[in-house]
C-alpha cells in the first residue's frame, strides 16, 4: 500500500532524512522509534507535504503513485493523515466549522476520484456524527464550539487530532508523538480511540520516543531510526529491548556494527 524508498529530505540545506526505506501494508501498525533528532518527525512532515522541508531524493508511493510532488491537501484527499505533534492554533475558528469543512472537502475530493456522487452533510447530520466520535474519545460536547486548539491543554490537543483522524477516515494514518504530553488516563483514552479506529484497510505509522504507548497500541512492526535512516526493524519485542538497553547503548551497538 505504501512504500518509502531511499527518501532524502533537508531543511535549510541541512540533510535530516538520509535514505529512509519502509513499507506499510493495509492492516499493519508500524512503530517508529528513535532518539531526539533522529528524523522521526521530519519523516512525518515530509510525508504530509510540509513545505518547510525539501525532498532531495527518493520516492514515497501510495498505491503505486508517488505522492511527493502532491500538495498537502491532495495527499489528504488521497487518504493520508498526519496527527501533529504540535497542532497549531487557529483563533476564531470553531472545531465544528473546521471539521465540517475538512470532512466535506475530503468527501467531495474522494467522490470526484471515484467518480461517485457526494451528498453533503446537513449541519445537523454533521453534528450528530461529530458527537458520536467525540464520545469515543471522552470529549465534552463543549469542544465543538471551542476555537481550534486555542487554549487546549496538551491532552486536549492530542484528542482533537485523533478526533480528526476518526472523522477523516484515512487509509494511511501517521501519528507523530501522539503520546507526548498525555497523562496516563488520557493516554489510555487516546490509545483506545486509535485501536478502535484501526482497521484492515488502514495502515498506521506510530512515531514515538517512548515504549509506553506501545503498551496500549500493539504494533506489528517496530523500526528504529537514527541519523535519518531506519537502522533496525523487528517485531514488538524490539521496543522492549530498546526500553531495557536505552538508545545510547543501541547507538553504540549500531556504530560498532
Amino acid at each position, binding site marked *: 500500500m505504501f512504500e518509502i524508498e531511499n527518501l532524502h529530505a533537508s531543511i535549510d540545506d541541512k540533510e535530516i532524512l538520509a535514505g529512509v526505506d519502509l513499507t506499510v501494508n493495509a492492516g499493519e501498525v508500524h512503530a517508529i522509534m528513535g532518539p531526539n533528532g533522529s528524523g522521526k518527525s521530519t519523516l512525518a512532515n515530509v510525508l504530509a507535504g510540509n513545505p518547510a522541508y525539501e525532498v532531495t531524493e527518493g520516492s514515497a508511493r501510495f498505491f503505486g503513485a508517488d505522492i511527493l510532488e502532491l500538495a*498537502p*491537501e491532495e*495527499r489528504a484527499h488521497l487518504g493520508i493523515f498526519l496527527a501533529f505533534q504540535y497542532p497549531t492554533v*487557529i483563533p476564531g*475558528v470553531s472545531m465544528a466549522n*473546521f471539521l465540517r469543512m475538512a470532512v466535506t472537502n475530503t468527501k467531495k475530493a474522494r467522490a470526484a476520484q471515484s467518480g461517485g456522487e457526494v451528498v453533503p452533510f446537513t449541519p445537523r447530520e454533521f453534528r450528530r456524527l461529530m458527537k458520536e466520535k467525540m464520545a469515543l474519545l471522552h470529549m465534552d460536547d463543549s469542544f465543538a464550539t471551542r476555537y481550534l486548539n486555542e487554549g487546549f491543554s496538551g491532552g486536549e490537543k492530542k484528542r482533537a487530532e485523533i478526533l480528526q483522524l476518526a472523522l477523516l477516515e484515512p487509509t494511511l494514518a501517521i501519528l507523530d508523538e501522539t503520546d507526548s504530553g498525555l497523562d496516563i488516563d488520557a493516554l489510555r483514552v487516546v490509545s483506545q480511540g486509535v485501536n478502535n479506529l484501526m482497521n484492515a484497510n488502514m495502515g498506521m505509522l506510530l512515531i514515538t520516543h517512548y515504549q509506553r504507548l506501545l503498551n496500549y497500541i500493539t504494533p506489528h512492526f517496530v523500526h528504529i531510526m537514527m541519523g535519518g535512516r531506519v537502522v533496525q526493524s523487528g517485531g514488538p519485542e524490539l521496543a522492549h529491548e530498546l526500553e531495557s538497553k536505552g538508545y545510547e547503548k543501541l547507538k553504540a551497538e549500531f556504530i560498532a556494527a
Partner: protein
Amino acid sequence: MVAQVDIGEYKYGFHDTEDYVYKSEKGLSRKVVENISHMKSEPDWMREFRLKSLDHFEKRPMPNWGSPVLHELDFDDIYYYIKPSDSIGKTWDEVPAYIKDTFEKLGIPEAERKFLAGVGAQYESEVIYHSLREDLEQQGVIFLDMDSAVRDHPDIVKQYFGTIIPYADNKFAALNSATWSGGSFVYVPEGVRVEVPLQAYFRINAENMGQFERTLIIAAPGSYVHYVEGCTAPTYTTDSLHSAVVEIVVQEGARVRYTTIQNWSKNVYNLVTKRAAAYKDATMEWVDGNLGSKVTMKYPAVWMMEPGARGEVLSVAFAGDGQHQDAGAKMVHAAPNTSSQITSKSISKGTGRSSYRGLVKVHKGAENVKSNVVCDALLLDETSKTDTYPYMEIEEERVSIGHEATVSKVAEEQIFYLKSRGLNETEAMSMIVNGFIEPIAKELPLEYAVELNRLIQLEMEGSVG
C-alpha cells in the same frame, strides 16, 4: 444575492444606462448648491446652511494626514447632484424598472421580505424607495428619507441637524453640508424598541459620481433601534466620491446600534463623518465593516455627554490590492462614570494598507471613566502594510484606560495544518481570516455575518496562488 459574476471579482461592478430626470454639470459652485436647494424646494434656513458650508469647504485646506492619495481627488471632476426619478416608491413596482432590477441584483427586496423592518434605497443622489413596517409606523417610529423629513418634520430636524457634526467640523463634513441629498431620518419614540433592523442601501451608478447622503437618527429615552447600511458602486477607471455625514442622538437609557457593510468598488473615495452623542445611561454601538473603496477615511465617534453613557466601536477593515483603509474610532468622555470599548481588526493583502487611527479623550472632571482599546492587524503576505495611530488625551487622573495592539502574519504552519486536512490555499486563508474577524462577526445578525464572511471569501479568491 442574485447577481452572477465571475467569482473572485468585485460582484457589483455592473452599471445601468443613465436615464435621469436631472444631472448637474460637473464641478462644485454656488450655482450647483443653489440649484440642489431649489430643486428640493427647501426652506431658507437650509439653503443658507448649505451656502455657509460651501464657503467653509472652499476655505478649508485638505487634511494633511490620512491617505497619501487624498490630494489626487479632483473636486472639479465630480457630479454633485443626480436625480434619477421624480418620486419615491412605496412599493418596488413604483420604482423605475432598471433601478428596481439593480436592487434586485443586490438582494435588497429579498432581504426586506425576510428580515428587515424597513428599507430605504438610494440611487445616485436621491432615495428612490422607502418602506416601514406598519406596526412600527403605528407606534410612532419615523423612518424617512432626509429630504422628506426636512419637509414633513421641520421642527425636530431643525433642532438636531448639524448639531452633532457642525458644518465646520472638517472639510468633508462641510462638503456634505453644502451638497447633501438623500440619506435617512429615523425617530424612535420613548420606550419603543425596534427589534428587527432598519436598512438603508446606497448605490452609486454614474461615473464620477459624488454621493453625499445625510443621516440623522434620534432615539428617544429608553428606545432601541438597529440601523444597517450597505453600499456598492460600479467599477470605473475614474474616481467617484462618497462623503456622508451621520448624526445620532441617543437619549437617556436608549440604545442605538449602527452597522455598516461598506463594499464600494475600488475607485471610490469614501470619506465619511459619523458621530453620536450619548446621554445618561445611553449606549451607542458602531459596527463598522470596510471592505471596498479605494480610500476610506472614517472614524465613527461617540461623545458620552452624561454619566452612565457607553460607547462601543467594532471595526473590521480589509485592504486588498490598491486599497487604503484608514479607519478607527473616537471616544470622547465628557462626563464621569462613562465607558468605552474599541475593537479594531484589520486585514491587509497584496499592496493593500490598513491604518488604525483612534482617539480616546477624557475631559477634566470625567472621573471613573473606563476605556479599552484593542487593535489587531493581520498581514496576509510580505507586501501588505499596516500602521496604527492611537491618540490619547486624558485630562483626568481617576480613570482606567487600556490599550493593546498586535500585528500578526499568517503563519506558514497554520496554512500547512489546514491543507493537511484537505483545504486548499484559498480555503485555508479564508478560514484564518474569518477566524480573525470572528469576534466582530459574532456580534452581527446572522445574515450580515454570513454576508461579511462571503465578501471576505470573494476577496481571498483569485488572490492566492
